[in-house]
């Protein structure tokens, strides 16, 4: 019933179908192919930021891909925020330590008093 077609048979069938097509249809197919190739090339050249949905030419993502981009942007933002906060806190602490150390080192009381 359902005959299993080999790739070579499929190719021949398709070639035969193309031969039966009229010229305008063939022209439209050719244009569609050219456009698809151009879009593919543009997307593959887009920088990594395209992943976060920031690349202007990035408008062909599917729904699930866009959801993925959205989460990637959220995670990146959270990572930046966390790192920034941690660095700020660290820098502040170091600044305070430097200030206290100078106060001890320049005090008229000997250091031993602070260690005692």
């Amino acid at each position, binding site marked *: 019933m359902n005959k299993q077609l080999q790739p070579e048979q499929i190719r021949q069938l398709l070639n035969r179908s193309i031969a039966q097509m009229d010229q305008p249809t063939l022209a439209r197919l050719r244009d569609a192919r050219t456009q698809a190739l151009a879009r593919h090339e543009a997307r593959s050249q887009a920088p*990594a930021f395209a*992943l976060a949905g920031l690349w202007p030419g990035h408008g062909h993502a599917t729904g699930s*891909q866009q959801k*993925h981009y959205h989460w*990637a942007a959220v*995670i*990146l933002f959270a*990572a*930046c925020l966390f*790192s*920034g906060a941690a*660095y700020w806190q*660290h820098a502040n602490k*170091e*600044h305070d*330590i*430097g*200030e*206290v*150390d*100078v*106060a*001890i*080192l*320049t*005090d*008229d*009381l*000997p*250091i*031993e*008093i*602070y*260690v*005692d």
Partner: protein
Amino acid sequence: MIKARLPGLIICITLLLQANFAVAAAGTSWSQLDPAQQEALHPLSTQWDTLDPRQQKHLLSAAKRYPKLTPEKKLRFQNNLPKWVKLTPEQRNRAREKSKALKKLPPAKLEHVKQQVREREASKSAAPASSVMPATPAH
């Protein structure tokens, strides 16, 4: 493909953001210090390279304030440096806590405490055997 790239991208950006911490964790050699830092930390020139990177960082932070000190405080700062680096990290932390606590006192009370400490020190100098810091053992 996107799913495969995404974790790598996030890790790369996070690592880049953390680079400051990594740079801060590395030690600095004496020759890498600028002239102002070398001037402030001069008493430590011979032992600087052997100091813990974290300790170096704290000292560099303190050295930033050195140019603004009065000549008298500059002298105290440099005289105290060798003793300061000999302390253990725990001792230095304890000293910082005490300094912070003293700073919170009202000026009159602070002066009173300092006066008491000076008197106590003076009485200890009169009897060296009971010194706060153990003196160099007699040979």
